C-alpha cells in the first residue's frame, strides 16, 4: 500500500479528458482532489492524493507520464525559506493538517512536507513570507 500527494501539470489538449476516472477504474486508486485549477494559458494543475497498491500506483504514474502529464511530489513544491522564517509560529493555527507545528517547550516551528496538502493558507499567514509554493 502506498499513499502520496502529487502535483500534475496537464497540457492543453488533455484538460477536458477524464484522467482521474481512469486512475480509479483502471488502477484501483483512491483519489483525493486537493486542488484543481486551469491557468489563463490553459495548463491544468491538479494536486492529488493517491492511495492504493504499490504496483498500481507505479503503473498509474507511468500512464500519466505517457500522456505527457508532468508528475511531481507535492513535497517538492511547497517549501520553507529558512533564511526568512524566524519561527514565530503565526502559521501553526492556520495550517489545516498540522504540517506546521510548534514545539511546546522550545517554540521551534517544524514543517512536515509529508502532511502538507498545498492549500497555501500558510503563505498569507506568514508575516515573513517564508512559505513558498511553486506548482
Amino acid at each position, binding site marked *: 500500500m502506498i499513499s502520496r500527494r502529487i502535483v500534475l501539470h496537464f497540457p492543453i489538449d488533455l484538460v477536458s479528458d477524464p484522467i482521474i476516472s481512469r486512475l480509479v477504474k483502471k488502477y484501483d486508486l483512491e483519489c483525493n482532489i486537493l486542488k484543481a485549477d486551469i491557468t489563463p494559458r490553459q495548463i491544468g494543475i491538479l494536486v492529488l492524493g493517491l492511495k492504493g497498491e504499490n504496483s498500481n500506483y507505479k503503473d498509474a504514474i507511468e500512464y500519466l507520464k505517457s500522456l505527457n502529464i508532468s508528475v511531481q511530489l507535492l513535497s517538492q513544491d511547497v517549501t520553507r525559506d529558512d533564511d526568512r522564517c524566524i519561527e514565530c509560529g503565526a502559521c501553526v493555527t492556520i495550517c489545516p493538517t498540522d504540517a506546521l507545528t*510548534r514545539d511546546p517547550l522550545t517554540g*521551534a516551528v517544524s514543517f512536515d512536507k509529508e502532511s502538507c496538502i498545498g492549500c497555501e493558507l500558510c503563505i*498569507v499567514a506568514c508575516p515573513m513570507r517564508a512559505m513558498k509554493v511553486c506548482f
Partner: protein
Amino acid sequence: MRTIAEINDKIKKGKAVVFTAEELIELVEEEGVSKSAEKVDVVTTGTMGPMCSSGAYFNIGQGKPKMKLGGGKATLNDVPVYTAFAAADFFLGSNALPDNDPRNKIYPGRFAYGGGHVIEDLVAGKDLKFIASAYGTDCYPRRELSTLINIRDMNQAILFNPRNLYQNYNVAVNRTDRVIYTYMGILKPNLGNASYSSAGQLSPLLKDPSYRTIGIGTRVFLGGGVGYIAWWGTQHNTMVEFDQNGIPTEPAGTAALIGDLKQMSPEWLKGASFTGYGASLAVGVGVPIPILNEEICFNASLSNEDISAPIVDYGSDYPQAWSRDLGSATYAELMSGTIRVRDKEVPTSSLSSYPRARRIAGILKEWIEEGKFYLTERVAEFPGPGSGYDCRPLKERPI
C-alpha cells in the same frame, strides 16, 4: 550586593558570571534566590517579533549641485520617506507603503513590500533606488534626483524605534463569525485560534518589571548590533493591573531604541507583511539585567507559569475600544499550544519568536563573557509602576 562598575570590572577580567533568563529560572529553582543572586552578575533577556513602531533616519550627503530634500518628496525603492528635515536627512517608518500599493482595496491586502522591507534590504547591503524632487532654492538649486544608493555610502543610517519591547501584550481572539486580518495575524472566527506576542520569561521588560535597572541610556543588543534605550517608549503605561509579584497583567511599559543601522544584520531585522493589515519590521532586541540585589534576581527568575496576559476579542472589543473581560492565560499555557476561553479549547500561536529570543539572550551572554559588551549605568529612570504616567485615549473635540 554589587554595582555596575564592579560588574564591568569583572567583564574586563573575563570573570563575569552571565546567565540567560532561562538559565536563571533553573538556577533559582535549584538554589533559591539568595544563592543565585550571590552567584550571577548579569542576566540576559531577548525578544524578536514584529514591532510596528520602528523606523530609521538617514543622511545621504550632497550631490552636485546641492538639493534641499526638506519640503520636497522622496522615495526609497518606491516607498515614500519623510523629508521634512534639513537638506539631506529623511526618516523612514516601517509601515510606509508605495503610493501604488493597493492597500486593502483588494481585501485582504498583501502588503508585500513596505518600510520594514526597505530597512531589511538596506541592512543586507543591497543597492536601492532613491528618487527625490524638491522646489529649489538659491543655495540648493537642484530639483530632481534619481540614483542608486547603498547604506555603506550614507553618512548616517540610524535605527530609531519610538516604541519597542512591549512589557506584556494581549492574547488576540476573534469572537465574530468571519475571518479577520489583524496586526496579531489571521484570526479564525468563533474563537478558532488565539495569537499572542511576547517572549514571556525571556522578554526584557517583564524581567525587570519595576525598572530597577533598565532606563534611559541602557546599552542593548539591537538588530544584531549594539543600541541604546533612548527614552521610554510611546504609550508607556504605568497605571495598569499588577499581580502579587509586581508583574503587569496587561500591556504596560515600552522603550524607545536607537542604534547604528550599519552595524546591524538582516538576520535580526526583517521586513514583515501582515495580510489585510500592513507592512512592519521584526526587530531582535536583547537587554542585560545586572543583578544588583536579591529583589532584581527574584524578578528576573519569574517564569512563564508566573506571567499572564489578557485575552482580548479583536473582532469587536479591540476595534471599538470596548472593555470586556475574557480572562487571561499564563505564558506556560500559551506555549503549551491551547488555552481555555469561555469553556472552549482554543489553539494558540505566537508572533514573537521564542527560539530567536533564546538565541539573542545567548548571543548577548557570549558578548559579555568575551568582554565585547559592557553594561551602562542608566542616566535617567523610566516612570515606574503606579507613578501616574499613563496611556490615554484621544480626546476628540469639534474644531
